């Protein structure tokens, strides 16, 4: 990790100044239609969760006790770190430093790929202990929302592979594509931050 940092730290500063122009929509503006739509949909789910939680406080609190807070917290850090390297990689790509961008996106991909793996370590013991979506409303919400989020993560990992390919093979990497993919990945991150607070942390 240190090599990456040393090799390209100066580029980061330069690219930040270059991209400092105000009023720039990162990535394909059609993609923002998707992002805002997705934020709204998840928003409805979050509020729905809170409403039904208000009806069954005891059940939700008791069920929450069975979640694995450690894996949840580690996964949050994984996604945050992955997001950091995505944004650093985007800056490097923008500055034309392809080697640094590639390295950073590889690291981002590794941290991102750890998320579904850890999720399995969380889900499989729970399911085999009989904690399934049909158990109660809390677990239905838990599996539907984290499952939905996991689909987004999987899609994001695929997009990240395409970004890597774009950076690696094409003569002039399409910066707008890199930004579009990065925007999507950060949205996945934002959704998880809210999910983490709602499912694992609040009382």
């Amino acid at each position, binding site marked *: 990790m240190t090599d990456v940092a040393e090799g390209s730290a100066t580029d980061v500063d330069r690219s930040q100044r270059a991209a400092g122009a105000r009023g720039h929509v990162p990535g394909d503006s059609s993609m923002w239609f998707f992002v805002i739509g997705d934020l709204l949909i998840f928003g409805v789910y979050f509020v729905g969760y809170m409403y039904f939680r208000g009806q069954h406080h005891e059940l939700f609190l008791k069920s929450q006790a069975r979640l694995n807070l450690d894996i949840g917290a580690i996964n949050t850090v994984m996604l945050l770190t992955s997001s950091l390297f995505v944004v650093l990689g985007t800056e490097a790509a923008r500055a034309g430093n392809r080697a640094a961008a590639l390295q950073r996106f590889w690291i981002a991909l590794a941290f991102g790929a750890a998320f579904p793996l850890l999720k399995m370590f969380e889900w499989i013991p729970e399911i085999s202990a009989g904690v399934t979506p049909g158990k109660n409303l809390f677990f239905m919400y838990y599996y539907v929302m984290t499952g939905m989020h996991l689909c987004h993560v999987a899609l994001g990992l695929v997009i990240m592979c395409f970004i890597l390919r774009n950076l690696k093979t094409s003569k002039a990497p399409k910066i707008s594509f890199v930004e579009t993919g990065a925007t999507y990945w950060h949205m996945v991150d934002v959704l998880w931050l809210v999910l*983490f607070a709602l499912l694992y942390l609040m009382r």
Partner: protein
Amino acid sequence: MTALIRNPLTIVWALLTTVTIVSSLIALDGGAAHQINTTVTTAVLLIAAVKAQLVISHFMEVRRAPVWLKATTSGWVIVLFALLLGFYFAGL
């Protein structure tokens, strides 16, 4: 290396990670009994709102985007968390 540490993005990341750990500790400490605890919930949700806003403005680079986008995303964060807290307290 030092340049990367001084990079504002890395500082944002460090902040995000720290508050993640802090909010986990709040939940572990104050919420260990798994009973309704408005202090824990309020703290945790407000931290999550700040985190979401930080990721949106710094990682998604919305802080350099046009005003409509800033307004929409920040509006989402504010309205969402207002509704969440509102429904939480209404359901007590």
